[in-house]
């Protein structure tokens, strides 16, 4: 079990993220038992057989930074969990991928950040549409994770629109004109 933050609350979580090891093949790799998030390549190779599990909410798909979210456009209604991998926290492609999944393709299921997910990026991640955040196992103690919830509220009224609040500040509020 790992701890994740979902909709701003800490949850115990039993999803396993499957990463292809060296020499492992998307068509043949054995899936672990229980709820599993598979690489896009596995999903694309075995969509027909895995579809029912996805619809039952026990199989999700994760995207790497190089992968185009449009690839999943036709599957979005079947998938209840999509994850985006951050190989390094400073690799910001996942922010655009999340934005496209939500704002362009209308994905409404769980969108999870996995990989190097750190508290100081929580606020940007949620603004780009991630509703679940999964720091690497062991990165934070429980008290640290509880303290980290505060980072979700670092900024109360951002200037620009994003997935969480589509309208920019100048559309959300009436700003006073200069005196």
């Amino acid at each position: 079990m790992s701890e994740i933050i979902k909709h701003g609350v800490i949850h115990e979580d039993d999803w396993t993220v499957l990463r292809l090891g060296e020499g492992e093949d998307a068509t043949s790799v054995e899936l672990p038992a229980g709820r599993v998030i598979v690489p896009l390549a596995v999903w694309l190779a075995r969509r027909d057989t895995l579809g029912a599990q996805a619809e039952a909410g026990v199989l999700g798909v994760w995207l790497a930074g190089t992968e185009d979210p449009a690839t999943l456009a036709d599957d979005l209604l079947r998938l209840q969990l999509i994850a985006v991998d951050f190989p390094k926290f400073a690799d910001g492609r996942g922010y655009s991928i999340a934005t496209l999944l939500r704002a362009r393709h209308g994905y409404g299921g769980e969108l999870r950040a996995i990989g190097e997910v750190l508290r100081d990026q929580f606020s940007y991640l949620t603004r780009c549409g991630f509703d679940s955040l999964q720091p690497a196992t062991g990165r934070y103690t429980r008290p640290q994770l509880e303290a980290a919830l505060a980072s979700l509220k670092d900024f109360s009224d951002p200037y620009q629109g994003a997935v969480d609040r589509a309208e920019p500040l100048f559309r959300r509020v009436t700003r006073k004109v200069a005196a």
Partner: protein
Amino acid sequence: MYQYDEYDQRIVDERVAQFRDQTQRYLAGELGEDEFRPLRLQNGLYIQRYAPMLRIAVPYGNLRADQMRMLGHIARTYDRGYGHFTTRQNLQFNWPRLEDVPEILAKLATVQMHAIQTSGNCIRNVTSDPFAGVAADEDIDPRPWCEIVRQWSTFHPEFAYLPRKFKIAVNGAKEDRAVIQVHDIGLDLKRDAEGRIGFRVLVGGGLGRTPIIGEEISPFVPWQDILSYCEAILRVYNLNGRRDNAYKARIKILVKALGIDAFRSQVEAEFAHLKGGPATLTVDEVHRVADHFVDPSYETLPASDAGYTDQLAANKAFAAWARRNVRAHKQPGYASVVLSLKKTGIAPGDITADQFDSVAVLADAFGFGEVRVTHEQNLVLADVKQSDLFAVWEAARDAGLATPNIGLLTDIIACPGGDFCALANAKSIPIANAIQARFDDLDYLHDIGEIEINISGCMNACGHHHVGHIGVLGVDKNGQEWYQVSIGGDQGNDTALGKVIGPSFAADEMPDVISSLIETYTANRHDDERFIDTVRRVGADPFKTRVYADREARKQAHV
């Protein structure tokens, strides 16, 4: 000038709280060095050669007198009594303690200042024309648009971890004084045939290791769409820019790799989805911001002040200063004054705590309380009555800010170089000072006329050496500091990249090299031809030949 409302203020206050917490967690060991680095960089905090360096944002070069006073206070309290204005119109302190930075940021927030996104792989401080709003050749005031871009780019959640840094500049005048051709995005304010405002958009310019002049991606983006259009460019870059090699990660490399046409197609495809969306600017918002930049309450004055004319005739030193440091103004009876931060012997762009205060006093007394920073590392009082110029000159002279050298050879642009910067291969400041000392004769300086010398201590090119009429680049050769010289670079509408003249030089040769270049110019020039014009007309060869012949002669003389 823009004044914060409650929303702007809350954002910088929340940033201070956020960074205070991050710094505490770092000092407590909860946040690793690698994890803290991008966080502190996005707050302008570098760990430098001797100490941290804090880069404070001066949005598009605009400052108020109370902000100058606060900078003076910070210089005195947390630094060694001085600061340094950069080629991106920002201000750096070289000696703050990491532990003090949250407190410094808290003090800055009390005068509507911050260090947000002054470094890191994010959208940096937007830069512009220091004469915005007062230049006679201005078509459209760029400042409201700069502020709109500033707000949009501040804590943009999607673009905080780009492949590399990203710089936007805005120009609204006939003559580009914002160097928009060497920015990641250059925005050139235009009117279409019906008089509607929009932007010609350049993309993929930049200096650094691979200098490239930006290419036009769109001849005209209507003002309503400009944020959506920028968002489209940034998204294509964020998803496709290289992340495997920091030296090839800037957008210019992506644009070159794809070609401007293919890059444009991707941006246009993205823009098609965003156009008309919530980021579309409204008339109300543009008016709200533009209302901060209305003209100050000018007096109605004759075009030329009789007293000023008399003072020019009576005082040679004042006239020499006025000739170089005073610029024409759109408003009759007014002028703009450039306060020189290029006194010989001082690091270009450096300013002491007392000078911060002096400038604040001058701005309050004679300049509607406002100050501008130029990318040439000088300061500007944009709106001064001609009848006040003599008093401004006297006070500026007393403060060491009236060196009459704006645009002349000693008005050297230089990065902090190896004296401060951890990235530098070589020192910049002593080279600048040695050249200034060589050319200390004012009559000779005026005879040489307008010329720009730019010095960078490494190929990151913070001194913009590629676009200097004479560019000097510090290089490391077997652990020793050498200097590569280029000529023919230029900024503005005729932006060009200089060409290296040949093998590099030792530091002590540099004043001689500059002398050889200048003597070649004076021997070849036509009447009223600037250095750069002569280089363009006769080519680099006569300059090269002379420089290396003189060098050989010096060697022989020492044998």
